[in-house]
């Protein structure tokens, strides 16, 4: 398969990733030696992304999807687990080698109004990664910038190269942000809610660019809260709840045949375009509990509509169903 390396392994492999943050105890807590508490942001996440594949990490705010991505790129410290990128162990890489690796893994953020420096012309923003990594001569950089701009649909490049961010629309800004990631010709692109700040009229254009890059062999990890977008654009979907992946599989299968009660509930409340669509809404009560006190057993059981007493004790592992390769759910009832 073209999506895999010569050794048959996917480009990015994450195994049992754990990220915890310490909760500040305050002065009195420290003096009284209250036990140190932790926010369990990511509690054992495993996932893979192959070349030419788009994987969507979906879930509600606070479920740990952004922290997972940041830990993969070593932008935050992971407490344990393993991240392997093209066979390299990302977590134990020394700083200088990490820097070289960063050329190959890029991230784009949600807000194109904040991620671009307002004083930089488009060409300066897009060329900056090349300057930082000391790549190419001035004229070579200029060519690379033009190529990246045209790749994201800002063509002809000379029409946009000298503009400032305030002269661009939101969609055009996000294209510039993508161009400045592409200029380094990365192998992996992490897109953190790439369209949620944009008007619906331009979202499809941005997602179309990611789609095309994927077809050209880029590995894309998209973080999104929008299941409709994930369903339409991703090859595989990983659903996160409270720091864990609770279901993963081929996008259409997860959407059409969800097996985890949380995925089922989420899908039931996604508004559809057709006003005649009438589904039984499964509205979960309350909100995701805070990740400081994670429930025992299955972390979803306090909100689960079908939980049985065993769910309070057993912490379920991701398991595949018979005959469904690559579709796994963490539920003893699935």
């Amino acid at each position, binding site marked *: 398969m073209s999506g895999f390396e010569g050794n048959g392994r996917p480009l990015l492999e994450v195994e049992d990733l754990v990220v915890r943050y310490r909760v500040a105890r305050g002065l009195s807590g420290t003096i009284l030696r209250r036990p140190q508490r932790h926010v369990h942001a990511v509690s054992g996440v495993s996932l893979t992304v192959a070349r030419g594949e788009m994987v969507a990490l979906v879930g509600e705010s606070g479920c740990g999807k952004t922290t997972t991505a940041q830990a993969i790129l070593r932008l935050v410290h992971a407490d344990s687990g393993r991240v392997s990128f093209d066979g390299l162990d990302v977590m134990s890489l020394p700083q200088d080698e990490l820097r070289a690796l960063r050329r190959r893994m890029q991230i784009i953020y949600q807000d194109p109004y904040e991620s671009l420096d307002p004083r930089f012309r488009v060409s300066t923003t897009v060329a900056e990664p090349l300057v930082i990594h000391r790549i190419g001569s001035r004229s070579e950089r200029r060519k690379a910038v033009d190529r990246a701009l045209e790749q994201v649909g800002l063509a002809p490049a000379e029409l946009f190269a000298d503009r400032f961010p305030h002269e661009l629309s939101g969609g055009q800004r996000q294209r510039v942000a993508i161009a400045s990631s592409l200029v380094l010709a990365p192998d992996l692109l992490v897109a953190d809610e790439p369209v949620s700040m944009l008007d619906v009229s331009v979202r*499809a254009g941005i997602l179309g660019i990611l789609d095309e890059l994927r077809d050209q062999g880029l590995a894309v990890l998209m973080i999104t809260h929008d299941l*409709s977008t994930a*369903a339409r654009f991703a090859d595989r979907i990983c659903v996160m709840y409270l720091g864990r992946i609770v279901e993963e599989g081929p996008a259409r299968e997860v959407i059409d045949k969800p097996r985890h009660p949380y995925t089922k509930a989420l*899908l039931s409340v*996604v508004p*559809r375009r057709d006003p005649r669509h009438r589904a039984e809404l499964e509205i979960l009560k309350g*909100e995701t509990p805070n990740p400081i006190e994670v429930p025992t057993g299955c972390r979803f059981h306090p909100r689960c509509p079908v939980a049985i007493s065993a769910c309070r004790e057993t912490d379920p592992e991701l398991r595949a169903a018979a005959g469904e390769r690559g579709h796994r759910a963490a539920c003893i009832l699935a």
Partner: protein
Amino acid sequence: MAQLFEVEDLNVWFDLPNGRKLHAVQGVSFSVEPGTRLGMVGESGCGKTTTVLALMGLLPPTATVSGRVLLDGADLLERGEETVSPHRWKDIAMVFQGAMNAFDPVRRIGDQIAEPMELHGLAKGREAAARVRELLETVGISPTRARSYPHELSGGMRQRAAIAMALACSPRILLADEPTTALDVMVQAQVLELLTYLSNELGLALVFVTHDLPIVAQTCTRAAVMYAGRIVEQGPTEALYHETRHPYTRMLWAATPDLDARDDVVSIPGVPPRLDTELHGCPFAPRCYLAASRCTTERPELLAVGDGHVSACHFSSSVEVAA
């Protein structure tokens, strides 16, 4: 009999620092009845928020407003603030965009919800506190939360509290500007369920501003699509989806991914026009797949295309076929 709430030929101009005027709302008309929900949709900058702020009389002094806003047949715009203020919060209330972040962080939630009642002399002291508990219960928050501070509530709960505050004086019309935009899909479902309940059970008339078409499709009885300050199509929500009569509406649907559909998601080329210069012809023509020479010279009027369904397009009967 007069409608509960009628907006007729509403226009809003903003004075720009360069001496020009920006015509943000251009002849908007619609009406709402008790128990109905009207969705207003369109891209950012199309005039949705300006329209509802004008109805509340909350525009800044740089704005000039014309037209009629009739409540039980009486014009609220007639003498400006003097005619609007007796009805603000009492008959027409609003939930603002990001309302959940607009609470005063150092005052208890209950006291803030009681404020509009005290302001209008409807209730105070113990009576107001009892009403606050009742309101919290209506929006699905435990009445004991009245003593909580905003930071002690989650985002979804603060948004419900903002709705409770808007309901404090028992309004008949509720204007909601992107009430679920910052919320997660599950909490969004809870808030939409609440708004639908309030409208069905208490007869509240709802005007729902959002950029999210599926929310309108699942929540509203009618929808108005705005473009460049005007309503370009309005009708029953079902008709707007199944018998679309304006290319802009058609293209908005096509740009929206759907969980069950597998059709291509297509963005709308170009950008909306600037509103500080006078437009000739149809403002959507430069981005439209149906545009013909007539569209660049002759502005289409809003004409009836079905039962309670209007569209401003010279080629409204070709929309479905061509898409």
